[in-house]
C-alpha cells in the first residue's frame, strides 16, 4: 500500500558549480602536476614511486625538526645503524616489483583463486584419493612441516624487519614479502586440511611433531629460529633471501616437491608450492637489487662486501646443514625421478649464481 502523506523537507547539501578543475585558470604553478620533491628513476614518475618515496621521513632529506619521539636511549625513527651495512644513499633502492596496495591485492587474490579452483577441481575429481600413498605421507609430514618455516620467516623475520630499514621503499618491499610468506604458509596448511578431510588415514596434525622434534627438520628449524634471533635487519634479510631460500627453501620446494609431486598423482601441491616459489622469486628480485646497490656503493661497497662475506661464513654452514638434513625425504617417494644430490646441485648452482651476481666470495665447500 502506498502512502500519500507529504514528506518533510530533507536537508541535503546543495551541489554548487565551482569550476575547480584542472586547467580552468592559468596562474603560477597551475600546471605543476607531479610530485617535485624527489627525482624519479626514469623520466616520468611511476605510481609506485609517487605513493612510496619519502612517505617515511628522513632527517637527511626533508625532516627539519628531527624525530619527535625516541626509545629510552633517545634514538628515534629509523636509525641507519640498525644494520652493519652502510649506504651513501639508502633512497636509491626502488622495489623492482613496484609493489603498492593495488599490486599486493591483485597478485595475492589471483593466487588465492588459482589455488582455490585447483583444490575445488581436485575434490570434485576425487584426485586426492588417487595420489600415491607414500607421496601422501610426504605431504602429511614434510610439505606441511615446511609451512612452519614459511610462517616463521613471514611473521618473525620479514614482519619484524619491515620496521627497521631506513627507507619506505625497503620496508614496503619487505612487508610485501612478509604477506607472501604468511599467505603461502596458510595455503600449505589449509591444503593439509583439505587432504585430511578427503583421505582417510591422513594425519593432518602429524607435521607438528615432525617440525618440532623430527630429525629431518631439526636443522631447518634451528636455522629459521637463529634468523629470527638476529637483531640486524639486513643480516636477517640476507640470511633468508640469499642463503636460506636457495639452499633450503628452494632445495625442497623447487628441486624436490615441484619435480616429483605430479608424478605421484598430485597436481594440487605443485600449484600451491609453485605460487610460493613465484613469490620467492619476486621477493628475491627486490633483495638482489638492494644488496647489489650496497656492494656497488661508491663509498661503502668494499666494507659492505666484507660484511656480507662475514654473514656468509655465519649463515651458509647453517643452511647447508639444514638442507642436508632433508636428504632422507628424497627416499620416501617411490619413484626417484631426481636424486638428492641432483636437487642439491641445482640449489647450489642457484646460490653460487647469486654470489657471483653480487661479487661475493664463499671459499668453503658447499
Amino acid at each position, binding site marked *: 500500500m502506498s502512502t500519500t502523506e507529504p514528506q518533510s523537507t530533507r536537508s541535503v547539501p546543495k551541489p554548487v558549480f565551482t569550476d575547480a578543475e584542472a586547467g580552468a585558470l592559468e596562474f603560477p*604553478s597551475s600546471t605543476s602536476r607531479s610530485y617535485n620533491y624527489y627525482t624519479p628513476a626514469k623520466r616520468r614518475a611511476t605510481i609506485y614511486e609517487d605513493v612510496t618515496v619519502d612517505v617515511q621521513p628522513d632527517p637527511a632529506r626533508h625532516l627539519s625538526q*628531527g624525530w619527535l619521539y625516541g626509545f629510552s636511549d633517545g634514538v628515534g625513527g629509523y636509525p641507519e645503524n640498525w644494520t652493519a651495512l652502510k649506504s651513501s644513499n639508502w633512497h636509491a633502492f626502488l622495489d623492482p616489483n613496484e609493489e603498492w*596496495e*593495488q599490486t599486493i591485492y591483485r597478485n595475492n587474490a589471483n593466487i588465492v583463486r588459482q589455488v582455490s579452483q585447483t583444490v575445488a577441481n581436485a575434490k570434485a575429481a576425487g584426485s586426492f584419493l588417487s595420489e600415491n600413498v607414500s607421496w601422501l605421507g610426504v605431504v602429511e609430514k614434510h610439505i606441511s612441516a615446511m609451512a612452519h618455516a614459511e610462517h616463521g620467516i*613471514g611473521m618473525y623475520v620479514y614482519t619484524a624487519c619491515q*620496521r*627497521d630499514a631506513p627507507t619506505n621503499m625497503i620496508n614496503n618491499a619487505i612487508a610485501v614479502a612478509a604477506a607472501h610468506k604468511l599467505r603461502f604458509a596458510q595455503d600449505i*596448511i*589449509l591444503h593439509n586440511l583439505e587432504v585430511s578431510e578427503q583421505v582417510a588415514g591422513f594425519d593432518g596434525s602429524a607435521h607438528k611433531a615432525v617440525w618440532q622434534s623430527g630429525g629431518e627438520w631439526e636443522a631447518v628449524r634451528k636455522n629459521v*629460529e637463529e634468523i629470527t634471533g638476529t637483531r640486524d635487519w639486513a643480516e636477517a634479510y640476507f640470511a633468508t633471501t640469499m642463503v636460506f631460500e636457495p639452499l633450503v627453501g628452494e632445495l625442497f620446494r623447487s628441486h624436490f616437491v615441484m619435480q616429483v609431486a605430479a608424478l605421484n598423482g598430485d597436481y594440487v601441491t605443485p600449484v600451491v608450492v609453485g605460487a610460493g616459489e613465484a613469490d620467492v622469486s619476486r621477493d628475491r628480485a627486490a633483495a638482489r637489487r638492494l644488496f647489489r646497490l650496497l656492494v656497488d656503493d661508491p663509498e661503502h661497497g668494499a666494507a659492505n662486501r666484507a660484511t656480507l662475506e662475514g654473514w656468509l661464513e655465519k649463515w651458509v654452514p647453517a643452511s647447508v646443514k639444514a638442507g642436508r638434513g632433508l636428504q632422507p625425504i628424497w627416499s620416501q617417494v617411490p619413484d626417484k625421478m631426481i636424486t638428492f644430490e641432483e636437487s642439491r646441485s641445482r640449489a647450489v648452482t642457484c646460490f653460487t649464481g647469486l654470489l657471483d651476481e653480487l661479487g661475493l666470495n664463499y671459499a668453503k665447500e658447499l
Partner: protein
Amino acid sequence: MSRASITKAHQKIQELSWEPTFVSPVEKFSTDYTFEKAKKKDPLKQILRSYFPMEEEKDNRVFGAMDGAIRGNMFRQVQQRWMEWQKLFLSIIPFPEISAARAMPLVINTVPNPEVHNGLAIQMIDEVRHSTIQMNLKRLYMNHYIDPAGFDITTKAFQNNYAGTIGRQFGEGFITGDAVTAANVYLTIVAETAFTNVLFVAMPGEAAANGDYLLPTVFHSVQSDESRHISNGYSIILMALSDERNRELLERDLRYAWWNNHAVVDAAIGTFIEYGTKDRRKDRDSYAEMWRRWIYDDYYRSYLVPLEKYGLVIPHDLVEESWNRIWNKGYIHEVAQFFATGWAANYWRIDGMDDADFEWFEHKYPGWYDKYGKWWERYADLSKKNGHGPIMFEGDKAEYQYPHRCWTCMVPCLIREDMVVDEVDGQVRTYCSETCHWTDAVAFRPEYNGRPTPSMGKLTGKREWESLYHGWDYADVIKDLGYVRDDGRTLVPQPHLNLDPKKMWTLDECKGHTMQSPNVLLNQMSPEEREKHVAHYKAGGPAGRPAPQEASA
C-alpha cells in the same frame, strides 16, 4: 568462504606457530608491561585466503569511483575551501598509516600470543594499503584539481612544516618507546578505536557535502579495515589487564594517549570540518556535535567506561576536560585562527570566513562572533595586498599575540590561561595544559611513581618549529621551506582563494619581517621578566587578544 569454513581454517592456521627451542625471536623492542599471566586468544579470525580477495574487491570499488569522478568532472563541483585543507591532511595521514604498519612488530615482539600475531600481521598489510591508497588519492587531486601547488610538494612540506610536525607525532607515537604504550594503547586503543571515527567517518561526510566524493570512498574503505584493528587492540588490553602490575602503566598510558590524541586530532580535524566547509546548513552537525556522538558516546561511554569492570581507572577527568576545551574554551576556533595567522608558512590556501559562516558559527557556538568574528573580518581585510605584511606581523591591527608552543603536543598554547611553564631538562618550556606538562615531566621518564620504567620513550627533536628560523627574514623562511610557485616569487600559500596572479601574495610582501621564536625569547628573559611575561600571556585571549599591558593572571 563460509563462516564455518573460516572458523575451521582459522583453527587450522594456529598450528603454524611453535615454541622455539634453539633461539627465540630477538627482543628488538621492550616493554615494561608483563603478559606472564595473560590468557591468549585471537578475536579476529581472519585468514589470508579470504582477506586478499575481500580487499581486492574493496579496491575495485575505490578505483571504479576514482575513474567515475574523473569522467564525471567531480572537480567542477568541489569547494576550493575544502580541497585546500586536504593539502595538509593528505600530506600527514599516509605517514601515521605506514607507521602503524611499522608498529606491528613492536607488539608482535613483546606480546606472547601467536594467535593475535596473525591479526597484527594482517593489520601490517592493511596499513601499507592505507598509506599507498591515500598517496594515490592525493596524486589524483594533484592531477585534476585547479590548484596543484601544495599537493606537488606534499611529503617534503609535511616534513618541514609546523603543522605537519603536529601531525607527525601522531605517527611517531606508534613506533617508538615502550612497545605496548606505543603500538597498543596509543595506536590501537585510543587513536584507532576513538579518533579514526572523526578522521575517517565524520570528515569524509563533510568532504561529500563539499562536492568531493572520493575522500569518502577511499576513507570509508580504509575505515572498514579499522574494525579489525580495534579487535587486535582489545585483545591485547585484556591480556594486559590480567596482570595487576600492568594497571598503573595502563592508566598512565591511557591518560597520555587520550590527551595527546585529543590535542592533535581534534585540532586538525576540528579545523578541517568547521573552517574547511562551505556547507552551512544549520541542521548539519558541528564538529562538537560529531565529537559528542563519535567520541564521547560511541567510544568513551560504550568502549572505555566498560573497561572499569576490570578495575581499570578511566581518565574521566581528561575526557570531560577535552569536551570542556572544545565546547567552552573554543579549542577548535583558536586552532583554526592560529593556522590562518600563520598562513604564509603553510602549503595550502586559507579562505576567510564570510557572513554565512559567521551566522552558522553563532548558531552552533553561541557567543562565537564576539570572540572570533572581528578577527576574521580583519583577516579578510589583511588578506588583500595593500602595502602591509602577512597578518602574523600585523599584531596591532589584528589584535593577536603570537602564541607559545606546547612542548609536548606542539599545538600552541592557545587557551592562554591554561598554559604551564616549567624548566624541564635544563630548558624553560611551555605547555598547553597540565596534562601535556605531566606527559613530558612525569610520564615519559625512566621512572614512574617510584617504579622503574626503563622502556618508556623520550620526547626528542627540535620541538618548537619557530626556533629553526629565529631571526630569519620571513621571505627567506618561505624560500627555505620551498613554498614558492613555479614563477619563483608567488607563494604557494595564500590568505584567500583568488587565483588572479595580480592578487596573489609573493615573497616581496614577506620581506623585511623577522621571524622570532617565542621559546628562544622566553629562555633569554631574566626570571623576573619571564614571570611578568607569562602572567601577561595567561591573562590574554580569547582569540589571541593580548591582555591589557597592566594585566596579569
